[in-house]
């Protein structure tokens, strides 16, 4: 196969194992042969509609078998797929379509409500929609009339495969460009690390616009295995999710800690046969050890890997978690750099840190983003040239994350650089504040954030949720935190809440917390 392109495995396995399921969704399967033919037809339809090499094509739909057809159809046409959150407000959707100069969109009839509200600033053709939306549309029945043979498209591994939009500090999302080379390097790492084989059934639990999905689709395809798309409704109910793992015989899951905590606490795990589950990867945010320990005890046959990496450099580092001691509440290490990546830890003067010294993690790897779409200002800020090992200069990426390498050679994540707060003359890591609060047995999750006070300076506030059935008020938790962190790092205000706001990818939405807590009194401890 043409093995330097991210979509090549589909055609390869369509020849080698044509009847093997490539995709599974809600009891329906699509074989590699069917996926290859369907995506070829979509590619022809896109090209006929004017798509040029490296043209951006949005994917705006809920989980379905056609999501896989969309991904591979766009890539086979030489296009760049742009995952769009199907729940995003129409205004934000319009911004991305405009910013990324998207002229083609693959969607579904169920998205007609949002599509009708769109006011595109350039010609937009929607594929996979057979109902009236007011936009130029090409239905699946029209696409099915296209040839099933592969279109003749020339691509190299430096061409882009996808652009992933994430929240930007300005309020507008920013797009990260990822090449075939970067994506395939990441996909191959995933296949190799987890030892994926054709018999694996890998969950697609994360939404497509979250970079965990790149592992789900492309590492799985590398092995000729099956992607099990998890309906969004199922992901909202922990007990439905564990039921789905059981009924779909899912063997590998890559998700965020929140999903796993919910699965453990409300998923009725003890009533399910989850013996098919052999490997759980997690990332996106720290996993409190007490929750991970509980899940490891409940699933003794599964392996667990902490995967670290910003969306700009997915899977920078990883750590296979050994059994955790009962009294161990130290944060889980992020481990060592994954294959084909180099790490460099720099201090504030760009000097290299010795082991044991905290600094910003910088990465040199082919998995790196090719940069932010139309944002030279951001590119200048996060990419820099530096001689690698004293020889030729190469490109490094500033992750914005503080880490330290311990004598055991493992990297520990200390927190975001922009989560380092100067308060009362001291530097405080907000993640350390969270870890201190979360180490109380009653606390399920903790979030620390900064709120400006009336004098223009910053105050640390925090919010926690409690474990099911646990009771603890803010005063008790503050007394506990005092035993873990210095007085200057204690939050000036602590809430005990029923729940924490979440981003669409399941992470705690600390910006939302900061915005809603602005104006809260200092020195408050409310429950």
């Amino acid at each position, binding site marked *: 196969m043409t093995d330097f392109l991210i979509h090549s495995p589909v055609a390869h396995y369509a020849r080698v194992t044509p009847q093997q399921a490539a995709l599974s969704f809600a009891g329906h399967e699509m074989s590699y042969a069917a996926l290859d033919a369907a995506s070829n037809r979509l590619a022809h339809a896109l090209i006929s509609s004017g798509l040029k090499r490296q043209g951006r094509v949005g994917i705006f739909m*809920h989980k379905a078998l056609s999501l896989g057809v969309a991904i591979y159809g766009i890539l086979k046409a030489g296009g760049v797929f742009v995952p769009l959150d199907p729940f995003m407000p129409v205004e934000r959707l319009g911004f991305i379509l405009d910013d990324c100069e998207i002229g083609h969109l693959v969607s579904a009839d169920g998205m007609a409500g949002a599509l009708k509200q769109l006011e595109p600033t350039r010609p937009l053709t929607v594929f996979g929609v057979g109902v009236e939306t007011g936009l130029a549309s090409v239905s699946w029945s029209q696409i099915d009339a296209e040839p099933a043979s592969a279109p003749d498209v020339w691509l190299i591994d430096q061409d882009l495969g996808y652009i992933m939009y994430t929240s930007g500090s300005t309020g507008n999302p920013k797009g990260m460009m990822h090449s075939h080379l970067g994506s395939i390097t990441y996909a191959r790492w995933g296949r190799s690390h987890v030892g994926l084989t054709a018999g694996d059934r890998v969950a697609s639990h994360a939404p497509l616009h979250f970079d965990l999905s790149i592992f789900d689709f492309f590492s799985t395809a590398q092995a000729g295995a099956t992607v099990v798309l998890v309906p*969004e409704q199922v992901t*909202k*109910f922990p*007990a*439905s999710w564990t039921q789905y793992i059981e009924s779909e015989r899912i063997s590998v899951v890559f998700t965020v800690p929140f999903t796993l905590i919910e699965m453990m606490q*409300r998923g009725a795990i003890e009533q399910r046969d989850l013996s098919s589950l052999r490997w759980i990867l997690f990332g996106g945010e720290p996993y409190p050890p007490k929750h991970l320990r509980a899940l490891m005890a409940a699933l003794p046959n599964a392996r667990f890997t902490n995967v670290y990496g910003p969306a700009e450099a997915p899977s920078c580092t990883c750590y296979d978690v050994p059994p955790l001691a009962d009294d161990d509440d130290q944060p889980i290490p992020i481990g060592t750099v994954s294959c084909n990546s180099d790490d460099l830890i720099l201090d504030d003067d760009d000097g290299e840190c010795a082991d044991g010294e905290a600094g910003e993690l910088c990465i040199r790897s082919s998995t790196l983003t090719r940069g932010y779409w139309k944002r030279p200002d951001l590119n200048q800020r996060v990419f820099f040239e530096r001689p690698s090992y004293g020889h030729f200069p190469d490109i490094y990426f500033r992750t914005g994350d503080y880490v330290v390498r311990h004598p055991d050679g493992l990297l520990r994540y200390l927190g975001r650089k922009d989560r380092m707060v100067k308060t009362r003359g001291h530097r405080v890591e907000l993640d350390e504040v969270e870890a201190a609060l979360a180490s109380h047995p009653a606390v399920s999750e903790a979030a620390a954030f900064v709120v400006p006070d009336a004098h223009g300076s910053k105050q640390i506030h925090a919010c926690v949720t409690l474990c099911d059935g646990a009771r603890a008020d803010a005063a008790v938790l503050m007394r506990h935190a005092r035993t873990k962190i210095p007085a200057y790092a204690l939050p000036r205000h602590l809430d005990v809440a*029923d*729940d*924490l706001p979440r981003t669409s990818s399941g992470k705690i939405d600390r910006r939302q917390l900061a915005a809603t807590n602005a104006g809260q009194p200092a020195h408050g401890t409310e429950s």
Partner: protein
Amino acid sequence: MSIDAIRQYIRVEILDDETVSIEADEDLMMNQVLDSMDVMRLVTHLEQSCGFKIPPQDVTLEHFSTLRRIDSYVTARRNGDQLV
């Protein structure tokens, strides 16, 4: 507990907006009426109002995705019906 009562609880206690329209068969998750934490609040409320415990394995898509399904679940539990 009726569909109207469940709808009213969601409007007043969870959404803080009594004017929101919620159809009986509307998918509460897909239409972003509720998130998973809101469901837990609703479960706690139902347990307190109805006087029975709702085990985690019952809090599923089948029983909690629409107002009508929630109502059917509560009715079945009250009648002591066997649940699937």
